[in-house]
């Protein structure tokens, strides 16, 4: 027998312990059971709190942004109204001044 064949003979596979498969199946089943069990109360509470925080984190900034947008729009509308009012006042004043000037010239 060559040295390499001797090594092959020496290092041939050993059978796994007889209860290897049973132990493995027990671990697999334990893992599946753990995955199927409902989470404990504190875990559920924690999940709810986290979900609430996430929702709040998403909703609050959106609300704030919407409020700011509306305020800006209202400000713009007020500014436009004021500009229109000023324009009207200006034209009225100009018209009045013209009337006074005309009356003064005729009398």
């Amino acid at each position, binding site marked *: 027998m060559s*040295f390499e064949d001797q*090594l092959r003979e020496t*290092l041939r596979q050993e*059978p796994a312990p007889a209860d290897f498969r049973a132990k493995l199946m027990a671990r697999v089943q334990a*893992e599946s059971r753990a995955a199927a069990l409902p989470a404990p109360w504190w875990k559920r509470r924690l999940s709810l709190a986290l979900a609430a925080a996430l929702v709040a984190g998403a909703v609050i900034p959106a609300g704030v942004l919407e409020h700011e947008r509306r305020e800006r729009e209202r400000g713009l509308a007020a500014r436009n109204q004021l500009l229109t009012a000023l324009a009207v006042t200006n034209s009225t004043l100009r018209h009045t001044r013209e009337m006074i000037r005309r009356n003064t010239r005729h009398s």
Partner: protein
Amino acid sequence: MDANQSMVFSLALRYLRDAETAEEIAQDVFLQLYRQFDRIQSTEHATFWLRRAICHRAIDESRKRKLRPRIGLESVPEPPAETAAPDTMLNERLRRLVAGLPDAARMVVLLRYQEDLDPAEISKLLDMPVSTVKSHLHRSLAVLRRKLEKMQAQTIRAQAREACS
């Protein structure tokens, strides 16, 4: 599955020389395979995956637990002469010599002679260049052969002394 069980267990056992730890990490590797079974495409893929996983896990375990001191083959104490049947004695001596190989060389030798893989397959499993695998094999074989011959010569001398006295 039985063939894979023996393969995984034997690789861990021969690498770590600790049956309890070998069984534990072999179980872990199978459990890991079960968790990602949907990613496995064929039985060959499963065998490759298991082999790769157990090699890396055994190497990690060896490093973590410092099961094996960092010593070269030359400093491994030679096993005492035994009175068991010659074949059993030779096998046990060889196993001990292989167990004394440095980590990387030991895994390469196990994959070559236990699993009958060629250097290219070993290189893929261990993420090691083929030339390094070949070099580990060449050097390990030379050292194992020399060490074994030395041990056998000592045994013959001891037997001769016994016969004379």
